[in-house]
């Protein structure tokens, strides 16, 4: 055995046992039947996948795609100008990049909880507005789609800003000068030079935000309450409260497949290659 294969062995074994094997079990469960006491039994069936096409579950799927898409659009709206600003900040750019990255690494749970603290009935926003006599009774800010969107955008914005910045950083300043020399106004330069050139960053950033938003569980769970059910919550519910593992497995598989296909398309596209 060569040194290299010996070095690869532990990772190969671990990923086979604790990543591939669990996925294989979920794959096989998704074609089995729920037992009387919540176990998994034969016969083999495609019933679980047919059930996913029920209007109730289709609406969950649709809602997940909608919320993830909207979050992605908002991240682009907030993230593109920020990335543009950072890429033109000269020596300060590293500092600004740190400022984008730091909250990303500081506890996902704590950041989501922070929104809970700000938005709840007795939270900061309601307390301040009531003290100022702007409102008499607390507004319901939590447990709706808007709260979930807020949480998702705040959590995943760095995923958009970083690839966007990587593209903009390589933007040749000569292009901008040329545009200006040819009489383009700043807005025309933005629309006809900067945005087309930064397309790879747009695509990479959007995919990197869309994937985790589509599979989000904790944010809709804490900020959406029971109301905003996304695919991730459906999976969790089937594996815990509902104890329908075959159906939960089928839903997991759909989620996993969607994420994998999105990643594959990103890695295949020439745009991604330009980034690395």
């Amino acid at each position, binding site marked *: 055995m060569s040194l290299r294969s010996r070095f690869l062995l532990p990772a190969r074994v*671990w990923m086979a046992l604790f990543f591939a094997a669990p996925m294989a*079990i979920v794959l096989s469960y998704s074609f089995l039947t729920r037992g009387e006491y919540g176990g998994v039994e034969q016969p083999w069936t495609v019933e679980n996948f047919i059930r996913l096409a029920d209007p109730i579950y289709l609406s969950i799927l649709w809602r997940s795609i909608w919320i993830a898409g909207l979050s992605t659009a908002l991240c682009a709206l907030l993230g593109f100008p920020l990335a543009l*600003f950072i890429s033109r900040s000269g020596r300060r750019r590293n500092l600004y990049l740190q400022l984008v990255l730091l909250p990303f690494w500081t*506890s996902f749970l704590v950041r989501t909880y922070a929104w809970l*603290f700000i938005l709840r009935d007795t939270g900061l926003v309601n307390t301040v507005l009531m003290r100022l006599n702007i409102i008499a009774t607390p507004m319901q800010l939590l447990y709706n789609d808007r709260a979930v969107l807020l949480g998702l955008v705040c959590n995943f914005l760095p995923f958009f800003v970083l690839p966007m910045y990587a593209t903009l950083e390589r933007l040749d300043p000569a292009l901008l000068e040329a545009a200006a020399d040819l009489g383009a106004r700043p807005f025309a330069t933005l629309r006809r030079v900067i945005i087309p050139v930064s397309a790879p960053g747009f695509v990479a950033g959007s995919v990197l935000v869309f994937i985790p938003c589509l*599979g989000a*569980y904790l944010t809709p769970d804490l900020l959406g309450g029971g109301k905003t059910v996304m695919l991730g919550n459906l*999976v969790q519910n089937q*594996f815990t409260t509902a104890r329908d593992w075959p159906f939960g497995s089928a839903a997991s598989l759909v989620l996993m497949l969607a994420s994998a296909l999105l990643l594959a398309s990103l890695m295949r596209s020439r745009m991604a290659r330009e980034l690395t």
Partner: protein
Amino acid sequence: MKRKALGIYSAFVLAFLHAPLLILIVFSFNSSRFTVWEGFSFRWYRAAMNDPQLADGLMNSLIIAVVAALLSTLIGTLAAYGIWRQRSVILSGSLYLSLVTPEIVTGVSLLALFQWSFRFLHMRLGLHTVVISHIAFSIAYVAIVISARLRNYDRSLEEAAMDLGASEWHAFSRVTLPSLAPAIAAAGLLALVVSFDDYVITSLVAGVDSETLPMVIYAMARRGVSPVVNAVSALIVVAFGAIILLSQRLQEK
């Protein structure tokens, strides 16, 4: 004018990213139970220190994070080096896939695996199942940090060592490994944070006696307002921030 507008907009976006955590930290020092500022106090920090549930959770989280970080750093470093020597499409593909797999899917699939294996093994969910799971998702993070360092590493250094008579192992351990040391430390710190912070996967594969700190915080947050959670959160934010800054410094070395 245009530049100024862009700067103001960017400042707002950065504020949006940071405001929630800053507000939380400020209010963790509020002496009142309510969201009205009354005065500066360490009251909730003292309450947090004296909470047995939080102490148990912290202990469990520390044990899990340290063991998982050490092992995943070892496994991930070796894997990144192996992949650097010669591509391994299957391994790097599955590492990337493990990164984008939604946590909830990783969690239920590991739960399914453990429950299935318990038919043959006399075991239950506990700290060990959490550690196993955390290693599984941390390897990819470690491998990415080490790979990034290796990308700028000159291959001819090892070749030179071997031309001078060093074995493959010596070329690795005496030449490459020392220059990887800062990156390995950085990756280990990152793995520590990733493991310590995880709630979704942990909550599925933890046993009744292995509640971690995020699980305790989640339960408290669910139950309603408790400024104790603010204090614990503030401590986590500061500790994580310091570790991540240190990790980034090491990666730049």
